[in-house]
């Protein structure tokens, strides 16, 4: 069974008299432990697709199976549950809670998990921070960290709950190329350890880290092919 199976996905915004087809019939299948990058010009629907894959949004129509379960028809609370257990998000703007320490930020998904004891939460969060080489920054707040470090905290937060998929929407968009490359090394490692990674980028050298690239144009998939790395 495929990890993600999307069929004829539409997301249509009604803006007055005109309708905006952010996604205009997208079908895609992604297997476990794939490393996929999504590319396309601005406004082509990349973020819309990511938000749907991340269960932050619901489609206008279409089917979306995750692990064989139909997500497209789920209610609010069920979606929250999926986001918590199956998905790890990394955002372009980090989206850390500014007043909380790295540790607290990374603990958040575990808190909403509801089944993990406080002491275990702490251990798991420290382990995740150590994995992104921030074991010595647990009690720093976001404004005491560099941009690259912030994004690494965000990566630690995304992987702390052992999600099925890590989704990253332009994770290097706010970083200089050197720190961006460091983050990509991190994703490469996570992929090697068996994680499924989907990331949005508009930079070819970032996309080249993945083994498959999906190119969107006007809400449709224009190209879906293996990258150089994927062909090897």
């Amino acid at each position, binding site marked *: 069974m495929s990890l993600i199976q999307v069929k004829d996905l539409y997301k249509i915004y009604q803006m007055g008299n005109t309708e905006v087809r952010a996604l205009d019939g997208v079908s895609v299948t992604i297997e476990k432990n794939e490393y996929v990058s999504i590319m396309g010009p601005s406004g082509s629907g990349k973020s819309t697709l990511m*938000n749907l894959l*991340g269960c*932050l*949004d619901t489609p206008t129509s279409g089917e979306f199976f995750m692990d064989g379960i139909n997500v497209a028809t789920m209610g*609010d*609370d069920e979606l*929250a*549950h999926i*986001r*918590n*257990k199956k998905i790890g*998000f990394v*955002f372009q703007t980090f*989206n*850390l*809670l500014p*007043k909380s320490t790295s540790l607290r930020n990374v603990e*958040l*998904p575990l*808190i*909403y*998990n*509801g089944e993990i004891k*406080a002491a275990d939460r702490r251990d798991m969060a420290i382990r995740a921070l150590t994995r992104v080489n921030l074991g010595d920054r647990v009690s720093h707040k976001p404004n005491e960290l560099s941009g690259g470090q912030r994004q690494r905290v965000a990566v630690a*937060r995304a992987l702390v709950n052992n999600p099925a998929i890590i989704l990253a929407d332009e994770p290097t968009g706010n970083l200089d190329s050197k720190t961006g490359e460091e983050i990509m090394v991190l994703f490469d490692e996570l992929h090697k350890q068996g994680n499924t990674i989907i990331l949005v980028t508009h930079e070819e050298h970032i996309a080249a880290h993945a083994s498959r690239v999906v190119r969107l144009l006007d809400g449709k998939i224009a190209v879906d092919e293996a990258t150089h790395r994927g062909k090897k």
Partner: protein
Amino acid sequence: MKSFFWENLRIALSELWGHKTRSILTGTGIVIGIIAVSLMSTLINGVDGLFEESMKFLGRGNLYVEKWPWFGDEDWWTLRNRPRIELDMAEAIKERSQYAMVVAAERGRSANLSYKELSAENIYIHGVTANYPEVSTVDVEYGRFFTESEDRTGAQVVLLGSEVAKTLFPQGNPVDKMIFAGSKRFRVIGVLAEMGKFMGAFSNDTQVIIPLATFNKIFHGPWGRRSITVKVPEHLVEEAKEELRGVVRVLRGLKPEEKDNFAINQQNAFRQSYQGIKLAIGGTGMIITALSLLVGGIGIANIMFVSVKERTREIGVRKALGATRSQIQGQFLIEAMVITASGGLVGLIISTLISMAISKFLFPATMSFGVAFMAIALSATVGLFAGLAPARKGAKLDPIEALRYE
């Protein structure tokens, strides 16, 4: 679910700590409301206790024939011009009234007492008939009360109130000692048991009791209190009062068209006017409480709306990480309730201190557990209602829009 409560409590506390001034300002209305309600209930409880304590001095079945009514709105001059009560009516009342079980008479005025070099000033001298113990709560601790014949013959004997005994006889037994009231010598025949104060103000322990006939012999002139106490069966007190009114009218020779020129007082008068006062205190307290809680609650709702708006992105992040609507709603509800409950707690502490001061200087007024519990519950409830709309607004936010919010 339990772990979310602690988590939400933790978020709420750090959020409030992060906005200390704002939290204190918004909590003030609740503080005032809780002070009003808890202090009011404590005061009413205290005054109630005081009142019931005082009412023991006025037996339920006692009717007091006096010149002045205890309460009422009759013209002061009319009352002033009434004839004073002839205490020798007591005999006739006893004879004519069906209901009267005991009829006692009393007079009073103050004077200075002395024993050797010790003196007690402004002591209430109470001249009473020998049957006075039957209509009052006086209790002889040492010695004895005077007899009928001592009263008839005007014997110069005295019973000391407990405070007077302490003042004049700091150590040693006063019984059989001779004291002076002005220039008259009295033999102490007894000491009264401690009685406490009437309405927290008039001490019953700084009086002395002498036979009425002795009083009449020594103190001439019109001043002082005069009263005839008629003891009747408690359950017939209203009928007895009507009968007594008729009896006194006849004794006074009043014509049918003439108004009463005397008053028949009873405990009920106190009760009624006390109930009125209590309602007034209670009503005022309730209005102050309701207003300050309402204003405080509106302020908190307002601040919570601001807080939800300011933290739109935070809500988006939490939702993206898996927070459900009810968890977000719970977070803001608990925050609102923490503000109001802390306000309630502060209010409670302040009113406990105030009631301790009142207890120390005025009358016993202790905050009951029930009042404390009610105050905290009430303030938390205000928080619940004030936080409901803002919390729902936050919970309903769309995660994508919330994450995009600047």
